[in-house]
């Protein structure tokens, strides 16, 4: 299963980003493998409607879950409609650590 972590930088050692729509990077991990890929968020500094467009990036990359700090109303609607589960993580840490916590089942799904 593909999970997306919002990130301040392009690598797993970068810090997780708490904002969803304005995250500079999205890092996608496969829970079954070791590989990951980073996608730069072209809307990170957009003026408006960044949430649904960021959600589109996740949908296009086949994510089934996202770990982030905050999701705005419109993005929430888009993620829900696309069937992507949302997990909130609010302590600062690296992307790698966030993914590990997700894999270990330490995060609870936002409902």
């Amino acid at each position, binding site marked *: 299963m593909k999970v997306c972590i919002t990130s301040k930088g392009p690598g797993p050692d970068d810090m997780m980003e708490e904002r969803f729509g304005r995250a500079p990077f999205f890092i996608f991990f496969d829970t079954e493998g070791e590989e990951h890929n980073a996608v730069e968020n072209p809307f990170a500094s957009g003026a408006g409607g960044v949430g649904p467009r960021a959600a589109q990036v996740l949908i296009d990359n086949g994510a089934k879950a996202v770990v982030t700090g905050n999701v705005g109303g*419109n993005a929430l609607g*888009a993620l829900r409609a696309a069937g992507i589960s949302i997990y909130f993580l609010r302590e600062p840490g690296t992307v790698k650590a966030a993914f590990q916590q997700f894999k270990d089942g330490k995060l609870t799904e936002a409902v």
Partner: protein
Amino acid sequence: MNIIVASGKGGTGKTLVAANLAYALSDQKEVLLVDCDVEEPNLHLFFPQGGYELPVTTPVPVFDADRCTGCGRCAEVCRYGAITVLKEPPPLFFEKLCHSCGGCEMSCPEGAIHEEERAIGKIRFSNPRDNIILISGILDEGEVMAPRVIAAAKSYAGGHPTTILDASPGIACPVVEAMQGADYCILVTESTPFGLHDLALAESVTRCLGIPSGVIINRFSEEDDQVTDFCRSKDLPVLMTIPFDREIARIQNTGGLISESMPAYREKFADLFSRVTSAGGFSR
């Protein structure tokens, strides 16, 4: 003659000036007041009104799930993030983010998008007293397209010979929309450092648009007056100063108009209008 009353920020008494000016002029002629502060219209508080309303609508896309192939083109085209294309058609549409640019409809290769009108606000018309016609633009809660409602309010105003517009505070798009086509702009400010900062911004907008303007300083105090110096440096006439005064504050706090209860102000406002509109404009 279109006169717009604007200010760099809220709470300077902009609406008050518009209302007092309209009241003072209504002795002599019919005045059309247009409330362009569509996110928070409040001119009607000075002129309680009944009246009637017409809706303001905007075209938005409607998706045909049977034709949509989920290609994703519409979401790519939308600069406002109003569309998210899911695995299953139809795409998800966020109507409050849509700016009605029509781009999605034009770009859909399947012809799966057509437009329908959606209400985003209304225009209220009333005749609260002799010689005053009030047109208020009202943007519905949560909507973004203030300029569209402003444009609608202004179009109903048509070419009335004596039109006074109340702009929204600030200097963003809605203010520019309201200012377009104005013959004169009255900038309302206060004699404080904040007032000065916001006045400078508003002045730069009128300068950009090429609209002659002048300043009314509300809650004027001699001690703390940097505004007059600023006006001098920018060659902006100070049209009137309204002192910080108990009686004035009392009238205003109870929703009254100083040009109604204080004849001196009625004259001042009427005189201000004739100077502003006289040939050659206000002498600087």
